[in-house]
């Protein structure tokens, strides 16, 4: 998943420009400017409540920044139709947030609700890769937390985004399943030349998935660091 070539050589797909977000009196993001290069996987780490999930929400414009903006492929995202932005930049939220119904209804939700054709075979193959074979017709309320999290991941992947935003994608998984999901994610990112931003509380996972990480300081600021260096410090 972590590309060996230098990300700075490639043009940025997503860039934040002095992105600022406040919640009441608290500044969650304070003029954050970062760039995610085409095909890069960038980890996001930092203490709980530091604004990591908020950054992902702002990147798909589920929340509106108080100042600054985001550029997608060089274009201010306020000039884009939010639907187009969200089709191309897919968010997998930390909470699975599945809708009542079957696994099939959930993983095909995007294309179905946009009245687009659904590739059932591809969806089925994806479930198999994520260790969810045979669950297509199961009620999502009968899934375990880990299964639900993988269904949420599949739902975004079936939507075929160019950029993948993952908020703690393995938080509810046991160690074995976590390793499987990390491998599948790495393979999918490579196969589809995806750009990915992965929020994680686990520095080791950040190092496995990405060469660089945004480190939130808890006061609205961020710094870009090499994950190898972060892992060294963490040890």
């Amino acid at each position, binding site marked *: 998943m972590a590309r060996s070539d230098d990300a700075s050589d490639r043009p940025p797909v997503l860039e934040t420009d002095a992105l600022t977000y406040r919640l009441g009196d608290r500044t969650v993001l304070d003029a954050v400017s970062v760039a995610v290069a085409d095909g890069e996987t960038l980890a996001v780490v930092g203490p709980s409540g530091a604004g990591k999930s908020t950054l992902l929400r702002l990147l798909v414009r589920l929340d509106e920044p108080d100042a600054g903006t985001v550029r997608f492929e060089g274009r201010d995202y306020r000039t884009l139709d939010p639907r187009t932005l969200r089709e191309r930049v897919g968010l997998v939220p930390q909470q699975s947030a*599945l809708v009542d119904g079957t696994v099939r209804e959930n993983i095909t939700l995007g294309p179905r609700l946009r009245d687009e054709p659904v590739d059932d075979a591809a969806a089925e193959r994806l479930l198999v890769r994520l260790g969810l074979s045979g669950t297509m017709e199961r009620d999502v309320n009968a899934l375990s937390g880990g299964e639900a999290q993988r269904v949420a991941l599949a739902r975004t992947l079936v939507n075929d985004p160019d950029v993948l935003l993952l908020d703690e994608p393995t938080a509810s998984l046991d160690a074995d399943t976590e390793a499987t999901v990390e491998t599948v994610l790495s393979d999918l990112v490579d196969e589809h030349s995806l750009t990915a931003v992965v929020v994680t509380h686990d520095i080791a996972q950040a190092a496995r998935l990405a060469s660089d990480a945004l480190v939130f300081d808890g006061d609205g600021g961020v710094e870009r660091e090499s994950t190898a260096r972060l892992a060294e410090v963490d040890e």
Partner: protein
Amino acid sequence: MRGLEQVAAALVLAAVVVGIVSLRGLALEREWGLAIGRGFVQIMLMGSVIALLLSVPVAASAFVILGMMLGGAWIAHSRAGEIPGAFRIATAGIVLGAGVVIVVMTAVGAIEARVRDLVPVGSMIVANGMKASSLALDRFGDEVETHREEIEATLALGVTPSRAIARHVERGVRAALIPTVDSMRSLGWVWIPGLMTGMILSGEDPIYAAEYQFVVMAMIFAAAGLASLTCGALVERYAFTDAHQLRSFHGES
């Protein structure tokens, strides 16, 4: 026997009950006595207001009904929590729901275009439009707060706000219509509505009383349905920003 003589007879009966209560030392005679007296005064005042209304031109009915609609919208919006634009949504729901039914049924002659008919029948329709709007808004608020993460996850797939919230709007509309649909289902065998009872008691043909009662129930159903559908359509619009972001329902819209 008619009018005050009937009132006197009913009061004697009520007084006997209060007297028995007093003799048994239950200490309820003051509370019950006041309730009976208060009820009599209130209903006579209401009768006087309606008698006064009967003397005004029929066009005045429109103002009276509009006042009822605005009052109903105020009450319905208070059930809506912090749904953005709740008063406007409730007003639109009631005005459209009850208004269309009153205008259409008056135009075809099912409601006679006179104050005596328009105001009381109109008030029944408005009240039911209010109830439906109130229930719909209450349910929409609960649905969106309970399912906020699902709605946002659906929006994040590039789905339009109206499709993302559709199942929750549908639940709100269904909830709003439950009392009306149940009343329809049970009509005639579980209960005989007050209007039909009153018409029969006042000497009207029971068949005609039944027909008219059904007309009123159908009008109530139509008004409630239109009101809740209107509220649902407008909630879709007010719940999201132009950038397809789900607004906060806690007063931070």
